[in-house]
């Protein structure tokens, strides 16, 4: 065999081994992801037929025959109303869901689980091709926190959105000038799915605001209060550095 042939065969063999290893790594990642999603969806259906000892007790978290006050569970038993579900947990859809809210829901749940498992969005998209279009947004979801200065000076790329710290719709309705609304001080570049989460948070009733939505709470309040809540919103979705 000529030396060149030997080198060629060696290179081809190495490439095959590397490719095989990469494939195995990908399969392992996908399996971890599928299992994580399975656990995640099963948690939605979990029927807690038996209480556990509250945290702070020596046996905290353990299944118990008595409740926190030492009463027998027969009298204070906690369970979901209705029968325990017997159907399998829902699977992540292989086809693109028809409605926007379904797509957003699956994308967020999937991005969250993938981030927890340390799986790249591009790997997820191999499993669920309809998610490929959103891969950049899913990937940016696991970005580490950045300083407010970095967020304000960043240039938006794929998977990122420009976000108004003081919500632009309400500010405009209340007569604030566009110069203030669009001033660099009020703009940050954040991961797209974090942006979705903030929008959801603004519309969701919360104990922090007396069970109003943050948006309702802010109606008619001054710029400083709106900005303070806007910065709070960024913090609670983990965008800026603490």
């Amino acid at each position, binding site marked *: 065999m000529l030396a060149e042939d030997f080198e060629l065969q060696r290179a081809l063999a190495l490439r095959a081994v590397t490719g095989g290893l990469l494939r195995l790594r990908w399969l392992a990642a996908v399996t971890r992801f599928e299992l994580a999603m399975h656990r995640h969806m099963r*948690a*939605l259906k*979990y029927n*807690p037929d038996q*209480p*556990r*000892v*509250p*945290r*702070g007790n020596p046996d*905290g*978290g353990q299944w118990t025959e008595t*409740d*926190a*006050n030492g009463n027998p569970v027969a*009298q*204070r*038993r*906690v*369970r*979901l*109303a*209705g029968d325990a579900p017997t159907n399998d947990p829902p699977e992540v859809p292989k086809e693109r869901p028809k409605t926007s*809210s*379904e797509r*957003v*829901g*699956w994308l*967020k*749940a999937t991005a*969250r689980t993938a981030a*927890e498992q340390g799986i790249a969005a591009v790997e997820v998209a191999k499993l669920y091709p309809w998610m490929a279009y959103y891969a950049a947004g899913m990937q940016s979801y696991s970005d580490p926190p950045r300083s407010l200065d970095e967020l304000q000076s960043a240039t938006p790329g794929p998977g990122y959105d420009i976000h108004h710290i003081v919500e632009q719709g309400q500010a405009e309705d209340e007569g604030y000038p566009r110069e203030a609304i669009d001033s660099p001080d009020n703009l940050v570049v954040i991961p797209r799915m974090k942006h*979705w*989460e903030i929008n*959801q*948070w603004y*519309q*969701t*009733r*919360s*104990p*922090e605001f007396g*069970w109003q*939505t943050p948006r309702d709470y802010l109606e008619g309040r001054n710029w400083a209060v709106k900005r303070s809540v806007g910065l*709070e919103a960024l*913090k*609670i*979705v*983990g965008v800026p550095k603490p």
Partner: protein
Amino acid sequence: MSPQLLKDMPVVELVNQFTEITSRQYDAALFGNITKYNSLVDQMLAVADELKSRPGDQRSALVPLLVHPNRQVRLMAAEFTLGLAPVASRQTLQELSDAKVYPQSAYAMGTLRALQRGDRKPT
């Protein structure tokens, strides 16, 4: 559910209702169904008010839910037991906040910050 139906329910059934409603909140939040979530808040508040009105403030029956497997159930159980089991409920909120799983981490962090600022008084 009508107020009369809630009034006729034993405490254990009210706790079951609370668990079911907050489990449905988890689904609604996960899939961004904000209208549904917000309407479930009303149902949950009605159940919590009914428990509070029972002799001895029966929201204490929610304490075992602080270790429920569903994090939304834990979150809301903690919200309504802050004045009754402050250590355990704050610990649950802290753990939810530290887990950084939206939206429960966001709400837990919001409540903890409000408590720290003194804006929120546990009742």
